[in-house]
């Protein structure tokens, strides 16, 4: 993230500090929770190499905080290689629905200390509690093994986080965490849930969207390639022919 963005973010953070500490919260909600992002749009430009988004917020009364970030759902096929006639080939497969294209979570303390397992399960918090719906053409497949393989592959691609990130509390009321988006972040609308947990119960939830989209030249090229694919193909060929011809002419004089 660029330094001006960080600067603005820190101003916002201090603004929240003032609001959270001085303004009396007179709303009906028992446990006020305010959350915002340094940026609600992750723009994938030509120079995009991944970015961090700062999530910050404030609670009025002490508690634990869990943040989950979930990308758009998609179908995923998991294939298993087997040795056949000496070479490794794709053999059995399993298909899953509702696999998020991106998933990350963060908490200020280990999640299993903050909340009991049934709460985490009910709210589908954390990688272990994601329900991927198997629409397998292969009912005999060991679902646990395939599911683990799916998670492992997504983690290796940097799209699922290996372990929950750290949320740091600046005082008892202010918290912040960085959400990392790698270079291969899929586009779409992401949902960020922030849970305030006290005494093993969810006291408050805030949901905020985040949009990841391509902008600038790369977005236009992608759009053009899908909308006018025939014209795109012709242009691709013409560019190649001209480039080859220019090179040939340029080198002829030597």
């Amino acid at each position, binding site marked *: 993230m660029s330094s001006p963005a960080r600067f603005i973010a820190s101003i916002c953070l201090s603004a929240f500090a003032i609001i959270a500490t001085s303004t009396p919260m007179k709303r009906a909600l028992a446990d006020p929770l305010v959350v915002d992002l340094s940026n609600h749009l992750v723009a*994938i*430009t*030509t*120079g*995009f*190499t*991944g970015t961090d988004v700062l999530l910050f917020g404030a609670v009025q009364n002490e508690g634990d905080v869990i943040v989950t970030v979930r990308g758009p759902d*998609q*179908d*995923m*096929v*998991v*294939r*298993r*290689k087997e*040795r056949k006639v*000496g*070479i*490794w*080939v*794709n053999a059995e*497969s399993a*298909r*899953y629905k509702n696999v998020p294209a991106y998933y990350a979570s963060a908490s200020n303390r280990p999640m299993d200390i903050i909340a009991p397992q049934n709460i985490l399960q009910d709210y589908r918090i954390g990688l272990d509690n994601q329900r991927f719906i198997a629409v397998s053409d292969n009912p005999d497949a060991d679902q646990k093994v*395939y599911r683990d*393989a*799916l998670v*492992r*592959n*997504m983690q*290796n691609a940097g799209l699922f986080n290996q372990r929950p990130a750290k949320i740091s509390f600046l005082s008892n009321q202010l918290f912040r965490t960085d959400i990392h988006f790698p*270079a*291969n972040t*899929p586009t779409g609308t992401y949902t960020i849930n922030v849970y305030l947990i006290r005494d093993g119960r969810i006291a408050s939830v805030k949901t905020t969207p985040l949009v990841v989209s*391509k902008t600038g*030249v*790369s977005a236009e*090229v*992608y759009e053009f*390639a*899908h909308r006018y*694919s*025939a014209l*795109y*193909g*012709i*242009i*691709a*060929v013409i*560019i*190649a*022919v001209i*480039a*080859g*011809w220019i*090179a*040939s*002419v340029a*080198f*002829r004089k030597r």
Partner: protein
Amino acid sequence: MQIYLPIAEISVNIFLILGLGGGVGFLSGLFGVGGGFLITPLLIFYGIPPAVSVATAANQIVASSVSGVFAHWRRGNVDIKMGLVLLAGGIVGSTVGVWVFAWLRSLGQIDLVISLCYVIFLGIIGGMMLLEATRAIFRTRRKGPIRRSKKHQHSFIHGLPFKMRFYRSGLYISALLPLAVGFFVGMLTALMGVGGGFVMVPAMIYLLGMPTGVVIGTSLFQIIFVTANVTFLQSVQTQTVDVALAILLLIGGVIGAQFGAQFGARLKAEHLRALLGLLVLSVCLKLLFDLVIEPDELYSIMPGDL
């Protein structure tokens, strides 16, 4: 410096891709092959999705072949009539190939088929070239009598109908033969993301009996049109041609090809063939190794809505 590729949807190091294009372009100019058989595996290895690699390599080969063909054209080393007959087969073959590619991809077997195709074709052709070229080198060293070209030997090939005269190559053979060669190589272009020069060049020399001098120019000539066809069809069917990636590769590629062509003119033909044979065999062995060795990760994932 990193650049985000719009179609591949990942960001890559711009200088690494330029260097890759340059290195392969040099070999392309040197041997008269499109270089796709190197560029496609290298792109996949770098992390570009296989489908994007294959389709984009075809686009890049258009450029490197155009720049290469001019040098041969000026020396009169292009048999246009032969090129057009090969091309007719190539257009049909590559169209069928793009369709087969999409079908295999839906079955999840495209990676395996790509690898197997590489191992089989590179193995056979690399081995044959190396063997033949080594023999030729030893023959000239001993200053023994040079064997006559095969074009005057008679085989079943000369009994085929639709005979055509190819003046530039000094051949009078059935048009079915170059048509079949063109069709077969066109299919490989679509399936493997290669120009097919490594199959085309030996087929022209050993099967059609064309003189070595016109083989490279003629093969480049027809590769231009077949790869252009594949680029177009992949753009329409799978939207996997990444123009940004292709431009980076071709900037490096066309420059490298010029140096390659100049360097190649100073080498003996049999030495060139021996070197190409070695190169082809080493790529083959690497791919075979990857197929046989147990992979670290037995499971792979792919978005299912493809």
